[in-house]
């Protein structure tokens, strides 16, 4: 899946977000993709994907970022969501212990549904709200280490560590070769309506 553009390798990578409602998944993406933060982000954001490219040395990773579209609310994500994910960010809210417990469940789910090569990050979001902290950083860090995730505390509000999480994922993606679905099929796309009648067509 490596394309060459001006001598620069571009790697396409599907990245999925997981975590409780309100942990700040969408905020994290919006901060990364658009550099924005909205205090009261609506639950659904009305887009299936975000895409963002990131340069690491002389290589480029083009992230296709999938948000849960609210299907996580009643634990109803489809297998399709995990399929072919090169990377996943499991997000919890450091001011909400329950969201950390749920994050561990998402990690389990990912280990069961995703492929073993998926790069996993654990992001303790809302790191700007230190006074309300319920999840000690050490605890999350220890959990991440035990489970082969890399860990960062982030704040979509102040932008702390947000780009870093994605940059770290991009670096890891480029280190490990392969990852992409080896037998990818074709994605349907709208072509211009004019179509010369193919000579191989049934009646041509």
């Amino acid at each position: 899946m490596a394309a060459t553009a001006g001598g620069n390798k571009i790697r396409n990578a599907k990245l999925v977000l997981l975590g409780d409602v309100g942990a700040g998944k969408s905020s994290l993406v919006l901060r990364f993709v658009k550099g924005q933060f909205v205090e009261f982000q609506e639950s659904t954001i009305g887009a299936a994907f975000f895409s963002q490219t990131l340069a690491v040395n002389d290589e480029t990773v083009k992230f296709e970022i999938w948000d849960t579209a609210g299907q996580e609310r009643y634990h109803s994500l489809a297998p399709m969501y995990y399929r072919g994910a090169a990377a996943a960010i499991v997000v919890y809210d450091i001011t909400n212990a329950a969201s950390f417990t749920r994050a561990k469940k998402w990690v389990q789910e990912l280990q069961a549904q995703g492929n073993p090569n998926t790069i996993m990050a654990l992001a303790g979001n809302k790191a700007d709200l230190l006074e309300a902290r319920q999840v000690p950083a050490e605890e999350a860090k220890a959990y991440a280490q035990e489970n082969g995730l890399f860990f960062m505390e982030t704040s979509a509000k102040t932008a702390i560590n947000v780009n870093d999480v994605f940059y770290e994922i991009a670096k890891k993606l480029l280190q490990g070769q392969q990852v992409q679905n080896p037998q990818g099929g074709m994605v349907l796309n709208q072509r211009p309506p004019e179509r010369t009648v193919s000579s191989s067509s049934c009646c041509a």
Partner: protein
Amino acid sequence: MADEPAAAAGDSHDYPTIDPTSFDVVLCGTGLPESVLAAACAAAGKTVLHVDPSPFYGSLYSSIPLPSLQSFLSPNPSPSSSIAAGAAPSYSQTVVDLHRRGVYSEVETSGTVPEPARRFTVDLVGPRVLYCADEAVDLLLRSGGSHHVEFKSVDGGSLLYWEGGLYPVPDSKGAIFRDTTLKLLEKNALYKFFNLVKAHIDATSAPANEMVEGDAAAMISKEHLDRPFVEFLTQQGLSPKMRAVVLYAIAMADYDQDGPDPSDKLITTREGIQTIALYSASIGRFANAEGAFIYPMYGHGELPQAFCRCAAVKGALYVLRMPVAALLLDEEKKHFVGARLASGQDILCKQLIIDPSYKIPTLDAPFDDSGSKFPRKVARGICIFSKSVKQGSSNVLVVFPPKSLEEEQVAAVRLLQLSSNLAVCPPGTFMAYLSTPCTDASAGKQSIRKAIDALFSPQDSDGLEGHLETTSESTDHVKPTLIWSCVYVQEITQETSGPLQSCPMPDENLDYRNILESTKKLFAGIYPDEEFLPKKSAPVYADDDSDSAE
């Protein structure tokens, strides 16, 4: 995924409480029609709650891991819901219990399930494909769902089973030219026929003001169009084998078109040409699809998931593992105004749409089991084997015309072979789906078994290997050995009347055209003023600067 086919005893569940409690539309079941409707309703700005009793998406349209197949086809009778009677309705409403029907019967499996069994994904709608130019593809493109599913071409094309052998289906001039099994006379007649049909299609698709002189002459007369297609083909001088190719492998006719009992099962020239036009428009539509047909990687169960995601992106709320126990009727007992979930929670809605595996309670007689008057049926088969039925092809369609397997075979049998490149089975193995429409279950199953016997040798008969009569160029081709198979019958019940909307079941066809047509009608029925999944109803990317097509 499909570990629990139906809702188990209600009390043990820890059902969530849904918030909010009132919606424009509540859909129960995540089959393809319900999922498309959910996407369409959400795109039209309606508030949507979409629930499914199962822990997975797709209902009767799902793809499930092989180990779960048995429990899906033969579910334990679900305990009648006690919840409905439990709580008193919160409003002045009547509560009507909802019951599920048995859809599958006569399930018979043989052979040992190969390991790792979980790596085999089984379609419940097989054999099925999409034409590159059909409505399913257009809906995927319009809704943005196309971005979630990858496809592969049925690259091996189609084969016709004829007089004990397999022959390539000459579906283009090039294919006719290259075909070494056809007689010169057959080639000429077929060539002439394709030219005639092409001229007709071109003439009818040209805008009226651009009609060149001679176009009208190129058109097949209306009189012919309304006559049986088989008559027309005979007039064109096509041999019986060429007629079978066109009727059953290109126009996809189901029932015997030469039979003594023509009745209403004959397709007209108009219908035949319509399918040929679609077939022809499908070839070359997508750069990577060699033939007319494509198949979704990971199985057909991806399609409902794609539409559900589109709906979710547009704000629809999703709850799996949530059965609907009962329906709520208004005071006059005329309209359904909501659903009582298995959790006991009442959800109010303006429109209620349910999966066809639920019986629609008729208002006069709440549940009438005998009501099924001669339902349509389809016999289906699933096979696992380790060698392609056609050397060098991974995905291929095989058509057995009526009477080609035995005199009693009244309808065509279609078989779709899929390989591991579709990620539905491990490398080195193949899967095949078969189906034939039937009114009598045992006759349908008999046809499926005959077709399986014609292509595969049974596992125990090593030593004495069956040979398939060979087509000219290939050398002796030893029949693949069958590892595992399952044959069953599915009912196709259609509920049309009543104040409650029920979606179509998977039908006997190779494609989704009729199912989506009914789905579209359902939508038009409830929202006559809304456009059905308008183009651009879902921007794929939120950011403007990205390319949405690659």
